[in-house]
């Protein structure tokens, strides 16, 4: 079952612009994570935000979490061509019967940063 859904499915911007991707989920979570995947490769963890946090920063990344709306956003500032990748949100459910190390991934947002 799909828990997280990213929006938009695809995003194309110019180098230097900011990119914002959104993730919505359906049920209560312990935390939400964002991953990046370069074409044809494995996923790389970017950032984790816990359910009691509202905002988190890591370099050019800013993640927000609104548990009342069951949504998160990932902002990449001053984008570079190297940021071109697919971005996934992943959630672990707070009511998962003890298997809370399982993550459920969305389908991803494909970001293209044009030089």
């Amino acid at each position: 079952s799909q828990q997280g859904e990213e929006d938009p499915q695809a995003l194309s911007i110019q180098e230097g612009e900011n990119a914002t991707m959104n993730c919505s989920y359906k049920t209560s979570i312990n935390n939400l994570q964002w991953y990046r995947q370069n074409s044809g490769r494995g996923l790389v963890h970017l950032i984790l935000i816990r359910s009691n946090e509202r905002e988190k920063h890591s370099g050019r990344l800013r993640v927000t979490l609104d548990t009342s709306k069951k949504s998160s956003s990932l902002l990449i500032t001053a984008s570079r061509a190297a940021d071109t990748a697919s971005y996934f949100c992943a959630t672990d459910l707070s009511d998962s019967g003890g298997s809370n190390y399982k993550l459920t991934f969305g389908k991803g947002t494909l970001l293209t940063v044009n030089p």
Partner: protein
Amino acid sequence: DVKVTQSSRYLVKRTGEKVFLECVQDMDHENMFWYRQDPGLGLRLIYFSYDVKMKEKGDIPEGYSVSREKKERFSLILESASTNQTSMYLCASSLLAGVPYEQYFGPGTRLTVT
């Protein structure tokens, strides 16, 4: 750096063959996972293991089995490969059972079943 390696980047097998996909992690992680990734469907969990010889079904276990005889190694087995198992297979590991740490992924194996 955590390293998760997968035995092959590309694999071509025939329908009905038994296929082994191997995954090794070098950071003493307790949890290991197998996903498949298909266009438009995202990542789907096949099986995971939280300890040696322990395994649990994920969302799509049908047609697959797994083996974890050593902590660092988690194998995915396709008993009789079928064309609908053509996919990208991703292995991942994470630190502790019962704790939602980040997952570390291998580079993936692109399997084609003809």
